[in-house]
C-alpha cells in the first residue's frame, strides 16, 4: 500500500492504494472524480522528492504527493 496525499487547494483527505509504480497511481487517480480534473496541471513527489518518471518503483509505505499549481510570494 502507498499513501497518496493531495496538497494545497485540492482539499481531499489522503488515500491508501495498491501501486507498484507511479503508473499504477496514475490509473487509480484517474478513476476518482474529485481528483481527475486536477491531474493535468499537477506535479508529483514520492517521499518528498519530485518525480517525472512514471516507471518509478514504489514500495510499501511510500508517500506520493500531488502538487497543484503554485503561487508563492
Amino acid at each position, binding site marked *: 500500500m502507498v499513501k497518496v496525499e493531495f*496538497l*494545497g*487547494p485540492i482539499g481531499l483527505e489522503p488515500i491508501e492504494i495498491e501501486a507498484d509504480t*507511479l*503508473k499504477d*497511481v*496514475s490509473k487509480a*487517480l*484517474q478513476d476518482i472524480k474529485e481528483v481527475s480534473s486536477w*491531474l*493535468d*496541471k*499537477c*506535479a*508529483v*513527489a514520492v517521499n*518528498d*522528492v*519530485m*518525480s*517525472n518518471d*512514471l516507471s518509478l518503483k514504489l514500495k510499501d509505505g511510500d508517500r506520493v*504527493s*500531488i*502538487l*497543484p*499549481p*503554485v*503561487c*508563492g*510570494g
Partner: protein
Amino acid sequence: MELYQGPLDVKEIFNRWLEAERESNYGAFIPFVGIIRAEDNIEALSFDIYEPILESWFNSWVEKAKDRGAIIKMAHAIGDVPIHTTSYMSAVFSPKRRVALELIDEFVEDFKANAPIWKYDVVNGERIYAEDRSTPMSGSGILVKKENI
C-alpha cells in the same frame, strides 16, 4: 529558510540578515520584499506551504548560490497576510553586483514557478484559491500524459 504564521516583520528580518553578514565581505546585498496589494476587494492573501519540499527546493538554491560565491536567504508567511503587509522576503549576498543581480532574478522567478506554496484570496472571510495566478510546477501533467494512459 524562515516560515512565520502571518505577515513578516520586514525590518527585523532585514536588520538580522544584514547583521549576520556584516563581516562576511560581500559587496552586494539585494533583498526582495513582496507586499500584498489591495486589489479586487481582497482583505488578505492566505498561503499554504508544503514545508518538506520547500526546504529541499530552497536547499538546492543554497547550493547553486554557493557555486557562484553567493548566499541566499528566504522568509515566507503561512496563513493570512493582510493587504499592505509582507508575505515574502528573500535576499542574495555576493562579492560582486553582477552575480547578485542575476541570482535574485533567477531565484525569485523559480520561486514563483516551483516553490510548493498555494495562494488564496481572502474575500468576506472566505478563502478562494488563486487559480488564475498559479503556475503548474515543472513536470506537471505526468499522471495524465497521453502515452501513459
